[in-house]
């Protein structure tokens, strides 16, 4: 298994859609074959279509608000006394998280395909909120599938979705979280694929959805590459790009332009959800060595039992609370291009507290996992090392949880 240079990772798959010969693919019911093929053809066409790219860039600039800023966390750096810590503040994007890139692109594709309805899944509620925003912007009818447990813990985002005119479909099966929301959304698409477009909220699902999402979030690293050259006279020799990983869409977007670099120069570190300290449950298939399995139409490392039943996960962060992970990250793990670790609920909360104390940043619980790793390793590193954390979501949605666990928000 080897990575190829000068080809985007999303395109390094074989004819059947597998990365590294075994990750990804399209394990879908026959009914979805045609709509998935149609979507694949359409996307192939659109990504080469100049007027479509112009439209994308227009909306990215004027609607999402690119570029998001790239800032040094001076006080935190001084406090920790090691490597420099920087943040790419992707949460500045319209709506407050990176999910807006994928949602906007899907809405544009939906329009191009002449479909009037769009459906999507959501965990933290950001994918749902963004899809509802994009749907409103482009005049599409929108349904969002969300686990009943997540509806309770991510109220602010639910209010936003409803305000945008989207219908939230609560999912009561299984653990009532993201995994069940994705299943139910796929079932809905099976029944309505003739007039409805489906948006998968991360770089997971059948091959084409991994590609579209990765193609959309790549915007993050395109911007960062330019910003790095702007801020540093000489491109730093030691960079560490730290990102939280649930499905892995923000991490892929944050890293994609840097994958070809030598890992001694640019290290990629993914931080999964380790779950509560005292619990055996987690959502860290990569760093806790889960076996390969098939979930939601793709093969990846999946939290599952010996029989192949998908295991329940647990994390304080709804956005990372998913038993599978992107096939792109499985490939990055197996080729050792990226390193994956995990942070517990408590680590993430502690990181959030520290960030709030020193900086004007308000990272949601998802990127707080990434900050936990940054805080852990920074003191041991030299001052010329540049740690960059993708602050990919805003904590407003976590208000209730943070109040309860830290006593204030």
């Amino acid at each position, binding site marked *: 298994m080897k990575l190829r240079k000068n080809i985007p990772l999303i395109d390094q798959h074989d004819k059947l859609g597998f990365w590294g010969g075994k990750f990804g693919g399209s394990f879908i019911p026959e009914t979805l074959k045609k709509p998935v093929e149609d979507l694949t053809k359409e996307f192939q066409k659109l990504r080469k279509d100049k007027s479509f790219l112009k439209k994308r860039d227009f909306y990215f600039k004027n609607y999402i608000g690119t570029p998001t800023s790239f800032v040094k966390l001076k006080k935190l750096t001084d406090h920790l006394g090691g490597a420099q810590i920087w943040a790419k503040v992707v949460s500045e994007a319209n709506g407050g998280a990176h999910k807006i890139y994928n949602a906007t692109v899907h809405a544009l594709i939906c329009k191009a395909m002449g479909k009037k309805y769009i459906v999507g899944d959501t965990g933290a509620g950001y994918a749902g909120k963004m899809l509802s925003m994009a749907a409103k912007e482009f005049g599409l009818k929108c349904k969002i599938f969300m686990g009943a447990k997540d509806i309770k813990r991510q109220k602010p985002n639910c209010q936003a979705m409803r305000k945008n005119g989207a219908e939230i479909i609560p999912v009561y*099966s299984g653990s009532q979280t993201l*995994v069940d929301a994705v*299943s139910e959304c796929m*079932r809905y698409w099976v029944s309505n694929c*003739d007039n409805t477009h489906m948006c998968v909220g991360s770089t997971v699902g059948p091959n084409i959805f991994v590609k579209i999402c990765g193609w959309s979030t790549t915007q993050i690293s395109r911007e960062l590459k330019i910003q790095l050259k702007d801020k540093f006279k000489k491109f730093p020799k030691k960079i560490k790009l730290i990102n939280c990983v649930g499905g892995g869409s923000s991490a892929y977007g944050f890293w994609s332009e840097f994958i070809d670099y030598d890992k001694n120069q640019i290290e990629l570190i993914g931080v999964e959800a380790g779950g509560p300290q005292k619990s055996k449950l987690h959502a860290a298939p990569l760093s806790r060595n889960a*076996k390969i399995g*098939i*979930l939601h139409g793709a093969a990846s490392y999946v939290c599952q039992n010996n029989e*192949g039943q*998908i295991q329940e996960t647990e994390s304080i962060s709804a956005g990372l609370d998913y038993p599978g992970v992107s096939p792109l990250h499985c490939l990055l793990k197996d080729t050792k291009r990226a390193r994956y670790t995990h942070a517990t609920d408590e680590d993430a909360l502690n990181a959030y507290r520290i960030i709030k104390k020193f900086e004007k940043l308000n990272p949601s619980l998802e990127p707080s996992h990434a900050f936990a790793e940054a805080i852990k390793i920074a003191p041991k590193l030299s001052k010329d090392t540049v740690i960059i954390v993708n602050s990919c979501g805003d904590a407003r949605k976590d208000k209730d949880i943070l109040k309860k666990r830290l006593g204030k928000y």
Partner: protein
Amino acid sequence: MHCSLINKSFEIAKKENRPALLTYTVAGDNTKKKSLEILFSISKYADICELGFPHNTPIADGGQIQTSAYRAIKNGIKIKEVFSIVSKFKKVKKKKPIILMGYYNMIYQFNENKFISKCKKSKVDGLIVVDLPHPENKNFALKCKKNKINFIQLVSPTTSKFRLRKIINDSHDMIYYISMLSTTGGKLKVSPKKIINEYQKIKKQNRSKNVVIGFGITEKSIKSLKKADGLVVGSAICEEITRSIKKRQNTVTNVTNIVRRLKNKIK
């Protein structure tokens, strides 16, 4: 493979001038013992019995079958026990075909080759793997064929003409036509006439293949689809199990009654 039990069942039904009746129940629903009893009892009326090996993330199943699957898993069914249910059944009902149906991850974790040899040992006649479509299923289907197990290809209203030809080419004795765009157990939203029309298109390509129709078939609609080679009823049966448990009635009797009534309607 022309002497397969599956083929024979269709021949018998044809001689009686009726479609074959295929039932679907979930192994271990609601217990191992009960699901075997149900299987024995309904096989008096069913021509072919489909037995589901349950998965907890079934992306193509509606509420009724999901409920059955979750119930069976909760009551502890393991894949090895699914095979032992089949073995026990086949020891008595040697000529009744059994088709196992489920999702690919269960087979993948068990190991494809081991799964097929287990199927062979316990005398499974056919396999339906919901999320392993054509052409991804080519290798696996070939392995099945070599071991005299029918791999059943699925065809849906969205299947293009081009794909249809290829799927039929690679199919074995039986093809499963999904009646409409739906998960299992949805309300029949297409007219029976239209379903039969689509069904005829498949038959025209190759008369020798047995084509069954499934998804959304109930006591109400089964008669209107009589022209097919075979008809599958699953969700209506699973729903009856749920209802019987709720009302504390005998699941075996109630399910058998439904299957008998279904059979009478297509005689």
